[in-house]
């Protein structure tokens, strides 16, 4: 070590800066909402009333918070998949389609076997959801690894295909027998048996899926940093040629990363059916079923800095934003399109705030050695490469 001067800032100050940084997404959200306030004013709505309604609607009561958590479940699950995909350096924007296929498969099984004990069916259904999502995510993986088909292209296309399959299944083979008789033929399945529903946690709509998702978040953390599989996925994601040199089958792990991320989305789809709606209904679009969770989950993971554990609170905050925004729409009666625009603003602001976080982080990190031709430390993403211990 040479005369290179380490930055010697006060440790307490440093810790404060670190805490400040981790709240950056929240500050960004607030900034976006401030911009949204201008729109609200233009729409003759009082921003203070509106935003209190938002907060109230998201966290203001036990029931509201439960709704927020219900909303957060699919976001968290898709977000966990995103964490894995991101570590494996694959871009999975097929969460919507994977949710649908997972839901279809698990619903089909749930409707086909009516005499099983609830816990057994729920387990089977979860596996079916995982399987469906895994297939729908794994296929683009295979196409990418073995046929060099870009996964952005294939996942976009497969979202559209999944929607059509859903529409067909729900008006055809899987239609509710009652609806098949009726003139209107609403494209929906029959309702699941009472016993098959995911148990509720408290007397609200909040179901056990939340606990499962949180446990899974921990498992994803363990998977990524404590298992050889996670190690391999991350190695392939970071540096394919080094991974190959390390004896890792690169192609296989590209498929696995997409497959696993699809599996989580598939499970999210299953939970929407078994935990919330108890049947599948289609309005002809993906969003009608997923509520955009396939996309928003990606955003939630980003809120959570692509770390499975931080994605838990991030999903809850993001879910709260969505639930609260809807509630705001009801209270101040602004067009719902504003909510979509606000949602977009929040995403843009949060993703931009990364810049400021990185910048202050870079200032904090003392350079390790000066031997390296005086190159500045290019620490872009603390935490992303961090290991378990």
């Amino acid at each position, binding site marked *: 070590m040479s005369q290179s001067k380490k930055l010697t800032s006060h440790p307490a100050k440093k810790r404060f800066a670190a805490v400040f940084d981790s709240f950056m997404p929240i500050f960004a959200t607030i900034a976006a909402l401030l911009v949204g306030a201008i729109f609200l004013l233009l729409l003759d709505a009082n921003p203070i009333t509106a935003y209190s309604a938002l907060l109230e*609607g998201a966290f203001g009561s*036990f029931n509201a918070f439960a709704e927020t958590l219900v909303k957060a479940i699919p976001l968290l699950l898709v977000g966990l998949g995103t964490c894995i995909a991101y570590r494996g350096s694959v871009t999975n924007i097929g969460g919507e389609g994977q949710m649908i296929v997972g839901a279809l498969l698990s619903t089909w099984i749930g409707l086909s076997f009516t005499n099983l004990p609830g816990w057994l069916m729920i387990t089977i259904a979860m596996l079916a959801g995982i399987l469906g999502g895994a297939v729908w995510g794994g296929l683009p993986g295979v196409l990418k690894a073995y046929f060099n088909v870009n996964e952005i292209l294939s996942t976009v296309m497969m979202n559209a295909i999944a929607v059509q399959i859903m529409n067909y299944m729900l008006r055809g083979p899987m239609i509710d027998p009652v609806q098949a008789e009726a003139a209107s033929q609403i494209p929906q399945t029959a309702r699941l048996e009472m016993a098959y529903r995911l148990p509720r946690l408290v007397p609200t709509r909040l179901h056990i899926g939340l606990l499962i998702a949180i446990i899974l978040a921990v498992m994803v953390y363990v998977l990524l940093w404590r298992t050889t599989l996670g190690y391999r996925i991350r190695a392939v994601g970071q540096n394919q040629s080094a991974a190959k040199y390390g004896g890792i089958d690169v192609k296989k792990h590209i498929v696995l990363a997409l497959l696993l991320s699809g599996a989580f989305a598939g499970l999210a789809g299953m939970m929407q059916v078994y935990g919330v709606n108890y049947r599948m209904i289609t309005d002809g679009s993906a969003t009608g*079923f*997923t509520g955009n969770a396939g996309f928003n989950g990606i955003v939630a993971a980003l809120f959570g800095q692509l770390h499975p554990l931080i994605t*838990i*609170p991030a999903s809850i905050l993001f879910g709260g934003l969505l639930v609260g925004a809807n509630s705001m729409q009801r209270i101040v009666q602004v067009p719902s399109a504003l909510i979509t625009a606000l949602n977009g603003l929040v995403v843009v602001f949060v993703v931009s705030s990364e810049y400021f976080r990185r910048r202050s982080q870079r200032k904090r990190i003392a350079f390790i050695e000066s031997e390296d031709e005086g190159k500045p430390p290019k620490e872009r993403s603390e935490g992303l490469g961090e290991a378990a211990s």
Partner: protein
Amino acid sequence: MKNTIKLFSLLLITVLLVAGCTQAAPPVEEPEVSDQPLRVAIVTPSSMNDLAFSQSISDAMQALQKEMGEGKLEYVYSENMFVVDDAAAAIRSYAQQGFDIILAHGSQYGSSVQEIAPDFPNTVFAWGTTVDTFDMPNVHAYEAASDEGGFVNGVMAALLTETKVIGVVGPIETGDAKLYIDGFAAGVKSVDPEIDVRVTYIGSFSDVALAAEAATTHLSAGADVLTGSAQMVIGAIGKAKEAGAYWFGTQADQTSFAHDVVVASQVYHWEVLLREIFALRQSGVLGGETFAATLDNGGQVIKINPDLDLGQDVLDEAERVIQGIIDQTISIP
């Protein structure tokens, strides 16, 4: 990183505790006072001015407001609730806010109503379009017999086509759209079974471009009369207008959109049903009824474009069929 996790968990726990402590008070039951305005909340899947399904309920509410007079009827809405889950949250929230009547204006909202209604026994829930009240005392069901209007449109279309080819542009093959389209086809066949009714479902409620191209395809394939259902058909109407082909509308009056070619529109007048629902509530009946907007009760009207010269025989035949459906001498297969 560890700090971050700790902090977030701390935050989370705080929020949970706060949320737990401030548990919501049960919804206040409002005393029935007759001079209070009737408060209605509407949840619709598309936007309130979609020139189709959602707009029809909005028009009905405005008509009723006018009819009942100043300050007698208030209504709020949540539009674009295509996410069933969000719609459920909206329905529950309106119920908690103590609205008198909640209109779940979308067939996909059935499950949500079924879940929520039992928790709010004093609130009237009306679910459309369907016939299923789940045997609940505070759930009404309403639907539109859009096959009736479809049948009438079909009869007129059959009389107007020269090429004996008629094109239909639909969204997805279900629900109200399918009901209308099947009725339409039956109407055509009732006049001349030889006429070819060709149906395309474009798989989307919003893809205007594909709807337009579907119409163009029908026109290239020889169709000279077109119809279609759902909000994306404006693309198809435009193509019909360009080609000078007749168009039949449904769900709302589409005449204003293309004066030269829109022959007739099946228009819903939900106010007819809503009036009944309001009246029943006054008499203490909160649910259990099934309503249908039909040609008979005026919930459904065939609005014929007066500016088009269709020939008297077509108009007469349409009138005859409408009457026939009303007095049930004509039944739709």
